[in-house]
């Protein structure tokens, strides 16, 4: 333990100002990852700027076009949120299996994303929902697609002095189904691999929109664009799902580590991708003209 400071600003501007004055300071939200890393000396001791007491960073607002999730909204609060559970079902699945009540009560959505773990379970569903993130810096605010925000293991596009303020999820159109599947070693575990599927069939005359994303099988949680491409313009039948799953397994770049081999992760992506699609389709085969 060090004597480094712990700041508790109550406005976003104050938080940014503190960071400007003390560039070595780190923002901390739930702290469920950072505190462990500090304790294990994997992160050098630093002053901490807590984002927990900033009302403008916290809470869910449901707008006509988007669901806006404040970065420090706890995972538990998201899980309890009716609209999120109903409309962002894949995210709900991810939250339900993410860690434990003790962690979800404290851990935040922004923290889960900014930690930039390849295995962050909220990322694949948010990628599948085509979410964006709003970043607040000392001088300006900007918005980035989540897919470009995540830059590598432990790396994001946050510039010096910037913080993630809000996650913006476009409200899925009517006819959207989504699913999230993961596999860990036991129930309380990091994902060895995870897949989120988003399928929108607005009406029978339009082509379905399918978005897929995977976690823990590359440097960052990633969209499965090749797999998505295989589904364009063809009926979503069993053969199509298998083809998409094969494409997904081919386009991920998993690593060998002590949790799993790359080969097994690839296998999981194939299985989970097919199953997630199937689950999102309600186990029905969808035939579509055009």
């Amino acid at each position, binding site marked *: 333990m060090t004597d480094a400071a712990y700041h508790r600003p109550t406005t976003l501007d104050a938080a940014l100002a503190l960071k400007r004055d003390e560039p070595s300071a780190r923002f901390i939200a739930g702290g*469920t990852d950072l505190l462990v890393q500090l304790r294990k000396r994997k992160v050098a001791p630093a002053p901490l700027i807590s984002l927990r007491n900033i009302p403008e960073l916290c809470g869910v607002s449901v707008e006509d076009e988007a669901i806006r999730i404040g970065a420090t909204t706890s995972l538990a609060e998201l899980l309890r949120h009716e609209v999120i559970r109903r409309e962002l079902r894949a995210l709900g699945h991810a939250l*339900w299996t993410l860690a434990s009540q003790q962690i979800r009560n404290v851990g935040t959505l922004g923290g889960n994303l900014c930690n930039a773990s390849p295995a962050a379970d909220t990322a694949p569903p948010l990628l599948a929902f085509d979410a964006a993130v709003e970043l607040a810096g000392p001088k300006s605010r900007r918005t980035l697609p989540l897919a470009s925000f995540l830059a590598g293991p432990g790396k994001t596009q946050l510039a010096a002095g910037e913080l993630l303020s809000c996650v913006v999820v476009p409200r899925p159109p009517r006819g959207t189904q989504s699913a999230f599947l993961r596999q860990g070693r036991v129930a309380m575990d990091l994902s060895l691999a995870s897949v989120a599927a988003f399928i929108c069939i607005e009406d029978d005359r339009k082509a379905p929109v399918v978005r897929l994303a995977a976690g823990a099988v590359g440097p960052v949680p990633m969209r499965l664009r090749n797999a998505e491409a295989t589904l364009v313009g063809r009926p979503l039948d069993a053969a199509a799902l298998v083809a998409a799953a094969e494409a997904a397994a081919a386009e991920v770049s998993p690593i060998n580590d002590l949790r799993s081999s790359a080969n097994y992760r690839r296998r999981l992506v194939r299985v989970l991708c097919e199953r997630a699609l199937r689950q999102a389709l309600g186990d029905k085969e969808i035939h579509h003209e055009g």
Partner: protein
Amino acid sequence: MRAELRFTLNGAAVEAFVQPQARLLDVLRDTLGATGTKEGCSEGECGACTVLIDGRAVASCLFPALEAEGKRVVTVEGLRQDNGDPSAVQRAFIDKGGVQCGFCTPGMVMATTALLAENPAPTDDEIRAGLVGNLCRCTGYVQIIDAVKQAAGELATKERS
């Protein structure tokens, strides 16, 4: 450099001077002498350090003490009823044999208390999901799950009457 911290611990106002980045767990155990809360892993995996903050279960090993400012913190020492009897959850753990070496027990009891406060009639799967962050190496969880069910039943009966 020490920071001043005030919160409610088991219903009583407490104040302490703590290192700015101290963990709530250390303040509870070392500064305030509330050693019922256990440290099992220091990284939020085992749940032995579970306490309630404003009614919600939290791993106190991952909780900055200063964030407890102004909050209601309840530890295992604060569960007993006014007449000194154990709470329904504590009683159920005793009755059903959900206690062996006892090291996970305070955390298990706190997690159960929070779980039942949020979901008074949990299914088996909901109980297991609720306790997934509390490791136990002695009991195989069977008699713990039995205890949670007894406590849920008892609290439901109390609710009705």
